[in-house]
């Protein structure tokens, strides 16, 4: 698949190119913006806002909690040894284990969710240019759905002077 992208020096130029592409009829989801740092103040960053990671972390915490309750209670009931005069299922000390496993569940789920949502690790050829590491901001789209190279070039030009390249993905 062929893709075309422009490399911009400043985020406001990238924003103009992004807006130009949208006005040219390119769906927002088809536009890739790549940068060496996040630019939260610009619209092109806002489209990916989502609370999914927070919800998944909560779910991970709940799973950790349930597993901890099962582990502590199940272990104590499977081998009912009285220790230090405490009841067989001793909830006070079990709370320590339950707390740690709850937090571990939330932390591990967050990291796994981040990797999955960001499609990492990824060693396939994505739309990317090493110039991004020199501070350039890449704005690009794949040439699919009958989209012409010329129309995309014109839309990218709205952002101002930029290096425009074509690549195979």
């Amino acid at each position, binding site marked *: 698949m062929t893709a075309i992208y422009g490399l911009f020096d400043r985020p406001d130029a990238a924003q103009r190119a992004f807006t130009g592409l949208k006005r040219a009829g390119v769906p927002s989801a088809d536009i890739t913006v*790549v940068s*060496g*740092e996040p630019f939260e103040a610009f619209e092109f960053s806002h489209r990916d806002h989502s609370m999914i990671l927070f919800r998944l*972390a909560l779910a991970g915490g709940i799973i950790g909690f349930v597993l901890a309750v099962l582990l502590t209670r199940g272990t104590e009931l499977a081998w009912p040894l009285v220790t230090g005069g405490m009841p067989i299922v001793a909830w006070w000390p079990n709370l320590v284990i339950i707390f740690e496993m709850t937090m571990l569940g939330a932390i591990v789920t*967050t990291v796994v969710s981040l990797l999955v949502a960001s499609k990492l690790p990824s060693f396939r050829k994505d739309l990317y240019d090493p110039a991004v590491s020199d501070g350039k901001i890449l704005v690009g789209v794949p040439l699919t759905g009958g989209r012409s190279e010329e129309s995309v070039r014109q839309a990218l030009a709205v952002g101002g002077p930029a290096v425009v390249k074509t690549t195979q993905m």
Partner: protein
Amino acid sequence: MSDYSTTLTNDLLRPLIQTSWRFWLLVVLLLGVVSLGIGAFAYQVNQGIGVWGLNWPVFWAFDITNFVFWIGISHAGTLISAILRLVNAEWRRPVTRCAEVITVFALMIGAMFPIVHLGRPWLFFWLMPYPTERQIWPNFRSPLVWDFFAISTYLTGSSLFLFLPTIPDFALVRDKTTGWRHRFYAILALGWTGTTKQWHRLESAMQIMAIAIVPVAVSVHTIVSFDFSMAPVPMWHSTIFGPYFVAGAIFSGIAALIIAMAALRKFLHLEKYLHPVHFENLGKLLLMMSLLWGYFVFAERLTTWYGNEPSEMTTFWQTQRLSFAPLYWTMVTVNFILPVTILSFKKLRTITGCVIASFGVVLGMWLERFLIIVPTLSHKYLSYSWGSYRPRTPEILLLVATFGAMVLFYVLFSKLVPIISIWEMKIGQHPQLAHEHQTADEASTMWRTQP
């Protein structure tokens, strides 16, 4: 790329790409120190635990002191970094990674000591919670099992908290290098490109991790304190131990962070990024923790003295004016009098002043851990059970080696990973404009000089 970004990238990547003979000399020296500790440990494994100074009734001494001390030092990084991230303190940017690294390595060193302390370390897996072939299941009512859960959770969380924000920097190094370095950092970067979606997910994940890691960090040292306070032993069985240990851990952690930052600033020439104001801010935190530590010690001592319980008073007087008094008053001097004297005055709160106070605190906090453990065990209850303790060469070598290992890990890490987060520093160039007509450059200069 702006001039600032170019200089920033070049300055922070220089240590990764250029290696002087001084680096290798330092590594060899540190390896020598670590080898001493490995040799001492091998000797102990070969000869048995009798080569240590441990003897009835003192079975916990240097190794458990080291364990508590290093777990305490580990509170420098992740906890401080997480709090600064959550409150969005702009001055945190050059500090956070330096701090997070301390956590991971200090935890690794600290967590090693319960295994070393076993005497038969090859049986360490008995500490793990699983049903054994003898059908004795783990006892979740034991604080030692709580340690396993707390430390493994904190180590996992801290390692991930350190790793996640390094991914974009690995991608940067990947793009800036060739040959084996390019291949190495390409693997570490996991294929990161920097799409808006990736940035947003990363920032969300860091926020969640920061929220989650703060209570975990607090729980870890509270649980370490439970190793003592759950036992009905004089001067240990105290409700103040949890917060007292946490405060002490943060106190020693900040001191370690100041020392590490001063060394990085000096040897990696990072004067442009680690400013005097960073040290001054950390110095203020250290001062606050010193006062808090003094408050806890006073509260603990006054309560014991006022209660006048004979078994507690025996241990109390051992530390106040008998055999352990020199160590105790040294601790008070370097943990309280020295830092408060230096850090209370703006003129003395310089980089040198902060480093002097920090070295004092690191020494003082090690002594504090030792003085919690040994005087109590050596003077527990009836006088027929009293004893003494004197460390032997293998224990001292092992202690020295832990400091060597910490520095070695830190040096090697700063050789492989940008020790200051490059992308976070770049974001710092774009603070909110203070007024409508202020240019981005003016704003950037503002935060670089007045964080």
